């Protein structure tokens, strides 16, 4: 008797959770669709921002090309090897940025009190915050990263095995998951420190800039921090170096190259927890 009640409760909770996710996805789709329509009202401006978004990261790559106009290797890596690192992290970051990039506006909403509007709407707050001012022009960044990744895969001379082939999409998707966790955690942090939105840039934009270059360029302590403390290394360094057949500067077992899904899942769970804590601690502004 007791068992069946518990089972039923469990099932209801599971169904409830699933319904919540479905609600969230639906709200996200509706809100982002609205923002896309509104963005399209200023077409010239949209074209310019999308191109600009493409060009921002393209200029990052241009800087690397300019470096390679002066040298043949950087940190012992060739241009095409760096292109693989660059393409992988920029594509991952592009996906996360397209989906969740607006979350850094949360601090502003907390400050001016407009977050309250989102709280009374019958849709998950995180979906509303993520879709708020959804910027389709961010596709520019994603496309640029994908171009460079494609270029790297074509020019690199790799002994492809089925595992290595599978590793590439896995790396990009899990990397996106890891960056998504950073975006969510950054937004959660803004509940505590409203004006400190810029701190998160150090980990998002700073993170992807770090990962564009091979780990051999950086001081060991920085690499250790990016591996053990905030494990951004799992976005591309560790899996890409496995694909390239190069040793990672820290002594890690080979199986860690297959750990990105686990790392992404743990980080997303932690970020979700941080988000809940932040949202629960939110006390609206006074009148």
């Amino acid at each position: 008797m007791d068992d069946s009640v518990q089972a039923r409760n469990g099932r209801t909770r599971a169904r409830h959770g699933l319904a919540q996710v479905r609600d969230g996805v639906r709200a996200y789709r509706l809100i982002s669709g609205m923002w896309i329509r509104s963005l399209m009202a200023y077409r010239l401006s949209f074209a310019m921002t999308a191109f600009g978004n493409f060009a921002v990261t393209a200029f990052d790559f241009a800087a690397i090309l300019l470096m390679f106009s002066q040298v043949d290797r950087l940190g012992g890596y060739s241009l095409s090897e760096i292109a693989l690192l660059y393409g992988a992290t920029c594509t991952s970051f592009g996906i996360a940025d397209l989906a969740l990039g607006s979350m850094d506006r949360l601090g502003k909403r907390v400050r001016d009190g407009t977050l309250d509007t989102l709280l009374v709407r019958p849709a998950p707050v995180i979906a509303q915050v993520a879709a708020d001012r959804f910027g389709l022009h961010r596709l520019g960044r994603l496309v640029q990263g994908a171009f460079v990744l494609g270029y790297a895969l074509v020019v690199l001379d790799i002994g492809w095995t089925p595992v290595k082939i599978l590793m590439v999409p896995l790396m990009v998707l899990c990397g996106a998951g890891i960056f998504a966790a950073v975006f969510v955690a950054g937004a959660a942090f803004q509940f505590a420190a409203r004006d400190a939105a810029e701190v998160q840039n150090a980990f998002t934009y700073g993170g992807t800039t770090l990962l564009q270059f091979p780990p051999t360029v950086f001081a060991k302590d920085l690499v250790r921090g990016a591996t053990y403390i905030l494990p951004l290394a799992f976005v591309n360094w560790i899996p890409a170096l496995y694909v390239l057949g190069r040793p990672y500067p820290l002594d890690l077992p080979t199986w860690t190259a297959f750990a990105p899904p686990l790392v992404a899942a743990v980080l997303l769970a932690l970020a979700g927890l941080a988000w809940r804590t932040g949202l629960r601690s939110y006390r609206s502004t006074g009148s």
Partner: protein
Amino acid sequence: MRVRTGRFRLYAAVARSGFRRYATYRTATLAGVFTNTVFGLILAYTYIALWDERPGLGGYDQSQALTFVWLGQALLTVMALMGGGFEGELIERIRTGDIAVDLYRPADLQTWWLATDLGRALFQLLGRGVAPMVVGALVFDLALPGEPGRWLAFLVAVFLGVLVSFAIRFLVALSAFWLMDGAGTTQVAMLAGTFFSGMLLPLNVFPGALGEFARALPWSALLQVPADVFLGKHTGVDLLRTYAFQIGWAAALLTAGRLLQAVATRRVVVQGG
């Protein structure tokens, strides 16, 4: 004469409030310093790798190259290379029509915004420029000038750079009179600002004609020129020639802004209600 000193006092007050406005947000300033420092660290290591491979690249030794990195982080917000100055606000005022109120004021539009921007730049220099530079100097071996004269020469170059930076962003903001939404032009300006100022890579590392071209553009007055003054690459008559380059661009772009402002304000149609 009375009118002139009155005007000066007005714009001085506007500049002071521009300074105070940015100084109010201490957490945001701290957050910005943190982010600039992280970026400085990342870039510094890539420059070390580059200069290890090619010592003396672009006429810099390694410590000069590292100094360039930290100067870039220090001047990033001062020169509003990635935006974040007054232009967003002015664009919003043009879009909403609040600009009509500004045009009614007994003050000149361009000078008014220049005053606020000078106040902002001074705060960013003190609040966001000094701290990352100190961290950089503690972690790496930087080429800091020994003689006070060069520090002074650097500050003059920074001031002239802010004038050029303002003049560019004023033109960008006025584009909103025609486009209504300034996001596109702002972004294009930001791109040019990061690439041609030397923020991505010092302009003297750019190969051949591209380097010559980049060094002749106004954006080089924002970072490359002040950094080279700081590193002692321009002294004596050459220093004066460098200042003349900055003043020339500032004058040309400020005049262009003035002309565009005259054309734009003739276009303003305020909706009645």
